[in-house]
């Protein structure tokens, strides 16, 4: 049972990673990051079945952090949109010196 769960987790994670790397739309990239986080959650739950309750507790932490991240990230995306009128990450390069 654990193997199938881990394979599922890996597939979802790779999809998320691939999305972050190739998509240009900030919202889509954001969704892909959520995919990665939830892939990890699947793995946590699967391991919790084997090793104890701590895995499930960690899932709640991840969800909390994901929620906070969504709030901050969406706010940033909105303000970028207001400024550039686009959410295409290729059209701005703010993250440099």
């Amino acid at each position, binding site marked *: 049972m654990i193997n199938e769960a881990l394979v599922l987790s890996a597939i979802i994670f790779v999809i998320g990673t691939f999305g972050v*790397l190739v998509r240009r739309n900030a919202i889509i*990239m954001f969704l892909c990051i959520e995919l990665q986080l939830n892939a990890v959650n699947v793995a946590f739950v699967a391991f919790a079945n084997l090793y104890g309750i701590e895995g499930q507790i960690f899932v709640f932490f991840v969800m909390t952090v994901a929620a906070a991240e969504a709030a901050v990230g969406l706010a940033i995306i909105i303000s970028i949109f207001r400024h550039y009128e686009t959410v295409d*990450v*290729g059209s701005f390069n703010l*993250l*440099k010196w």
Partner: protein
Amino acid sequence: MTALLTAALAQGGSPAAESGAFEPFLPGLIVLLPLLGFLANGALALAHGRDSANAVRAGGELDLGERGSRPLTHTLPSWIGPGVLGVAFVITLVNFTRMLGVELAEPVVVSYWTWMATGTFTVDAALQLDQLSFLMMMIVTGVGFLIHLFSVGYMQDDAGYPRYFAFLNLFVFFMLVLVMGASYALMFVGWEGVGLCSYLLIGFWFSDKEKADAGKKAFIVNRIGDFGFLVAMFLLYTTFGTLDFVPVFDGTETLVYGGGLVTAITLFFFLGAAGKSAQIPLYVWLPDAMAGPTPVSALIHAATMVTAGVYLVARSSVLFALSPVGGATVAGVGVLTALFAATIALQQHDIKKVLAYSTVSQLGYMFVGVGVGAYAAGVFHLMTHAFFKALLFLGSGAVIHSMHHAYHHTHSHEDAQDMRNMGGLKAHMPITWITMWIATLAIAGIWPLAGFFSKDEIIWQAAAFGGAETAPYPLLYSLYWAMALVAAMLTAFYMTRMMVMTFHGANRTGTEEAKHLHEAPAIMWVPLAVLAVGSVFGGWINVPEALRTSVLGFGGALPMSEWLHHWLEPITARAHEVQLEHLGEVAHAAPIGGGEVAWAIISTVAALAVVVAAFRVVGAQKVVPAAQSPAPTGFAKVLYNKYYVDEHYDRFIVRPILGASRFCWKVIDATIIDGTVNAVGWIAKGLGWGVSMFQTGSVNTYAFILTLGVLVILGVSIF
């Protein structure tokens, strides 16, 4: 001053003197008063600062208005400057009379506070009151007071008048610290302080680059000497663990006679003395120092500061007595300087330059005195020289003052100091003429003036020392004696030449200018007259015992002989013990026979003959004004150009040092050191620029690199 002195001597057995112990009367105030004068005058100078500084930059002329309506900044210094010195002199006199009848074998040390204390080494701010320091204090405050008075007349119309008196008072303060300090450390404070004031006053008219440079030269040459003073102090400290006079001199009993240590100490001290007292090879600054106002030349560069080196040797007499090499060096450099400077003075045309070289020469005599163990004779000449050389300088100041006024009236730009432009001034300024003749005869060594007794004593002691039972280098001292005699004859010649060119013959100032030549005002000629009295009678306080009953000593009419010698005995006793122990009795005949009286008569008759001869020879010469004078030729040219010593110093010392400094600056500092530092900066900058290319600012790139990094780490940790 001397009249007071002899009066005080006559009542040697007064009741106050018999009280036993010496009670110093406000000794601290003597030092403090000039300092207060400096602060007051300095405040006035600052109050008037911008106006006078601008005026000096614009060429020294400031419209001060009539003498009656001047601002307080230019009237108060006339009272403060000489005033503080006058009071200090009176206090010194009170102390001196108290000290007269007291047998003071040990110096009185008045300690005020601890200046510094580090571990076992402490230096107190303490004053040493003994016979030598009191003699120096009398000279500094007494002659200084007269020169301050003269300055009131001489400098009154100068824009920087308050600044002048501020510096002059500060100088006296440091000079008093120098002679009264109870340790070498405190003496060094005064030593450096007088050097600073000398620099400030030589460059008093700082808008003239030549004068500012002369000040710098004096300061830098003195630094070389100060290095010697410092090294000698370090040696004393490592030997005795203290710099206070009393324990150091007590500790000298452990020193080996003629040992390397004491020789090194004395030679280093003498290097310092040679710098301050303008001896070969460091004398070059003193003739240039004549750029300062003439009263400054009289006070600092003739009467007081330049004699500090002689004071140093006299104060350290026991050290110099312990080192025959040190003593011979002191006397040798002294006699060489005396002869050398006297020859240069023969061909100078600037009246102050003649006097400057004469001062260098006379300082040489003083060093001969202290070098041959005749410390009292050296100090005696220091005292009489303070009288007659201050008088000569002040007299030349009166002459220059008058000449300057004459040229000022006709807007002429002739040199007011060039003797070729003078001549016949005796008709215009008789008081200056007479007083300066007195000083000239005194310095020439004509009996019975002051210079005869002091200079003859030194020359005689050089011969006597060389003839001592086990004297070191007896032939050398005989040579010193002969050289000193020759230099004395040269002194008589160049001084008479100066007097004839200045005061006698036809006037060469110009017909229009001559109408404006005038005698100095009373405030200037009164100090001249007082100093003339000193130049006549100053020598009578130390008539040698051998001369006392002869015709030269007035057939025994004087109340005392060798008074100064006995007065200074507590200071020199230790040195004389050492000398007696190792050398035995000094001789009583000159190297080629003849006693003291015979040689005294010979030397004064010879000097008189030279004066008369010079009067006739120079008087017969046709002198033409400076503007029409031909350039000197032959040996006269060499003398006129001072043996090209300045040029040689420039070529062999100044330029190599400048070149080395330029090399250190341009090559080592600017190229190598700065280059290395800058290269490090450039490398960091280039690296940063290269690495910054990775920061595209695009989220995708960062995400890709991040993923790549995770994969690499995973790959490494798995395989």
